[in-house]
């Protein structure tokens, strides 16, 4: 019989499997002039027709241009469209920029724009964006460089929908194998997409807006927050935006020689409530919760100042922001009075018994858990006991969607048009088919929101949404917590990045490097 040696066998197995892998895959060196960006999660679909997660949208915007684009002040600017005309309240014509070519050299035409929108509207293609374009009746080319959009009814947020990346006519629809062959007109072209590892983009030398200053970008997926920061310290990563533990910032500044930019953001953190709950249906209780929470303390201690207390969903940089709304600074005494008024007396005064208990659901992320503990402590001071339940994201979100909660906390990212209020607070959107998860009902708000999406004038809409914001701050279907600030970390020697309030990375096309790449 052959003599069997277990260790030799294992070494043989390892050599057979590990070595070819090690030798064949090359070390992810950075070619000269490339900037390395660290990302927390893997972008799933860079194709703009399917991109829904923040990283896919942000990287997609570097590969694809859209008809319009929002600038750093949240205003709509021409992108592939040089200009547009409103023919009537249902018809728009976009005039395309001339001389634009796709990464494969093919010139951009109106047929490409029509194809992009039509392929999303075709139910066969299962685009997650189809529902958001349901107001479109038709999209037709009018000659080679004009496109006509016909709407089923007047719809003010329409122009916001034109920030969708344009793909060439005939592009394949969603298919894993099409990932490597995405073609756009953007400042960067896709070089390599290794899901879960990295995405390499190379500068588009023929970009109609001028070639980017860097030779290319590498997006490295590093799920662990600590490792992301250590890679930055080691100079394997040059750029990080958000997803940085606030506690690490001082260390990064001192030990990693990081340049830190902190800028106003639009991400809105709130507490959602079930308005059909026997206790939470009382407005006084919701108000008492708002007064019982010390936002300033949470921002100062937990978030290290990286947020500002919010008064509503729209941040002060939004064109429709209304500042004259009730504000809820920390006032435990007032909270107690309100609870007394609502008939929820403290059974033992300053004793340990609560007035009532509420369940609070959150995800198992470290910062969210600590935030829950802080809220629990603060609300216990006014006699409200929070039972904190933490869940894995999928389970948590399914519960929220089903309305299975008393209180929960989430954030809204990338709010652009105030029509978002329609989705969240119109009584027509109470689940199962909508996002009015707290079951908020107010006929006056319904009417205003319908008016808001039909009115085409900015001034007219500003008046409508100002009223909506005042009513919501009074009715409190959400308790506003804060608007998160954007934190951008760059290695010294990187210039030209402008942080966008919604975290857009488009400004990477203007970035220049004045350092030599480190050793691999």
């Amino acid at each position: 019989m052959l003599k069997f040696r277990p260790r030799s066998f294992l070494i043989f197995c390892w050599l057979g499997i590990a070595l070819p892998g090690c030798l064949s895959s090359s070390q992810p060196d950075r070619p000269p002039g490339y900037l390395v960006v660290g990302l927390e999660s893997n972008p799933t679909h860079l194709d703009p027709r399917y991109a829904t997660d923040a990283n896919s949208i942000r990287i997609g915007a570097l590969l694809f241009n859209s008809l319009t684009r929002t600038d750093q002040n949240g205003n709509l600017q021409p992108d592939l469209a040089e200009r547009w005309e409103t023919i009537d309240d249902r018809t728009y014509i976009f005039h395309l920029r001339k001389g634009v070519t796709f990464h494969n050299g093919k010139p951009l035409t109106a047929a490409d724009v029509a194809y992009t929108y039509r392929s999303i509207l075709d139910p066969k293609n299962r685009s997650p964006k189809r529902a958001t374009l349901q107001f479109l009746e038709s999209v037709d080319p009018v000659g080679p460089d004009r496109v006509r959009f016909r709407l089923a009814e007047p719809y003010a947020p329409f122009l916001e929908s034109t920030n969708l990346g344009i793909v060439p006519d005939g592009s394949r629809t969603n298919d894993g194998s099409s990932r490597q062959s995405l073609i756009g007109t953007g400042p960067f072209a896709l070089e390599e997409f290794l899901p879960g590892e990295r995405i390499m983009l190379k500068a588009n030398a023929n970009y109609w807006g001028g070639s980017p200053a860097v030779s290319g970008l590498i997006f490295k997926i590093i799920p662990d927050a600590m490792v992301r920061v250590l890679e930055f310290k080691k100079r394997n990563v040059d750029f990080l935006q958000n997803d940085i533990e606030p506690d690490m910032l001082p260390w990064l500044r001192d030990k990693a020689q990081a340049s830190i930019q902190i800028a106003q953001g639009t991400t809105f953190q709130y507490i959602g409530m079930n308005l059909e709950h026997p206790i939470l249906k009382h407005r006084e209780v919701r108000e008492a919760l708002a007064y019982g929470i010390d936002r300033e303390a949470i921002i100062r201690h937990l978030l290290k100042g990286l947020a500002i207390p919010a008064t509503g969903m729209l941040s002060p940089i939004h064109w429709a922001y209304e500042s004259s709304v009730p504000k809820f600074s920390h006032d435990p005494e007032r909270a107690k009075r309100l609870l007394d008024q609502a008939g929820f007396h403290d059974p033992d005064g300053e004793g340990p018994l609560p007035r009532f208990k509420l369940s609070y659901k959150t995800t198992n992320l470290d910062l969210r858990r600590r935030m829950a503990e802080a809220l629990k402590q603060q609300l216990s001071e006014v006699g409200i006991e929070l039972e904190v339940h933490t869940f894995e994201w999928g389970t948590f979100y399914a519960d929220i969607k089903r309305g299975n909660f008393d209180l929960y906390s989430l954030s809204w990212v990338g709010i652009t048009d105030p029509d978002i209020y329609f989705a969240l607070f119109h009584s027509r959107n109470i689940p199962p088919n909508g996002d009015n998860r707290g079951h908020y009902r107010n006929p006056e708000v319904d009417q205003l929101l319908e008016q808001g999406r039909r009115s085409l004038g900015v001034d007219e809409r500003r008046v409508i949404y100002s009223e909506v914001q005042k009513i919501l701050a009074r009715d409190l279907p959400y308790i506003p917590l804060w608007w998160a600030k954007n934190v951008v970390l760059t290695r010294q020697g990187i210039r030209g990045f402008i942080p966008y309030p919604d975290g857009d990375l488009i400004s990477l096309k203007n970035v220049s490097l004045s350092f030599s790449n480190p050793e691999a």
Partner: protein
Amino acid sequence: MNRYLARRLLLFLPTLFGTLTLVFFLIHLVPGDPVEVMLGETASGTDKETLRHELGLDLPLWTQYTRFLSGLALGDLGRSLYEQDSVSRLVRARFPATLELTLTAMLLALLIAFPLGIIAALKRHSWTDRLSLLFSLLGLSMPNFWLGPLLIIVFSIELGWLPVSGRGTLAHLILPSATLGMAMAAILIRMIRSALLDVLHEDYIQTARAKGLSEQKVWLKHALRNSLLSVVTIIGLQFGTLLAGSIITETIFTWPGLGRLTIQAIQTRDYPLVQGCILVIATSYLLVNLMTDIVYRLVDPRITYGK
């Protein structure tokens, strides 16, 4: 032996089938809707229903299960709901990385455990014995999510010897496999030490010594070989722990393996992908256990497996 192997192979299939059945029903019972992940929150109820129907998610769970099994029988693992790609292709792309990591971790654990375990037994109660036991205690007490960053800080940041994360060269493999293999090495050191000390009192060791064999030969040829039996058992069982631990290690070291893919599939309720990942993980575990039994026979030819 051949009959035994045939019987084990026959048992292999029901075990795998049981695992997949359990996972199938568990993942479907957990709250969460893949259709919502695919179509987005704003999709209309009709669109969601249409897609649910197209994907067969509106069918009774039992029918979905039989469909899954018939697909499996034909070698079709289906398409990932979220990634929109074939499950076989996704799993095939990630599995080599996990296998590479777990096998290297195992090899590293063996390379650490055998010398330390043998020395500990040879020099019982000496400072080397105490040192190896301390190493073993530390290895068992340190969780991967703590040990990983610690190793990075020491070997990548402070000393600058090894890369922080990623996969590519042999250097990239050292820290993740050390992190993953540490607990296994710790267990094996103690196992090897105590197994060796046990056999030292056996008669055949005394006989070997009486024959005038050198102490080295007594230890390596007689004692070690006979103590291997229990160690082999532990190696087989620990492989499952390595596969499970690879999920955390892969996340820390940005290792593009099956563990991270499994987590993502569970989070997005990507049912076919979860099943595909579990199929590969369970098969590997069962195969390693089967191999352990074969190695048993080879280590100790006296072992027979019934007729």
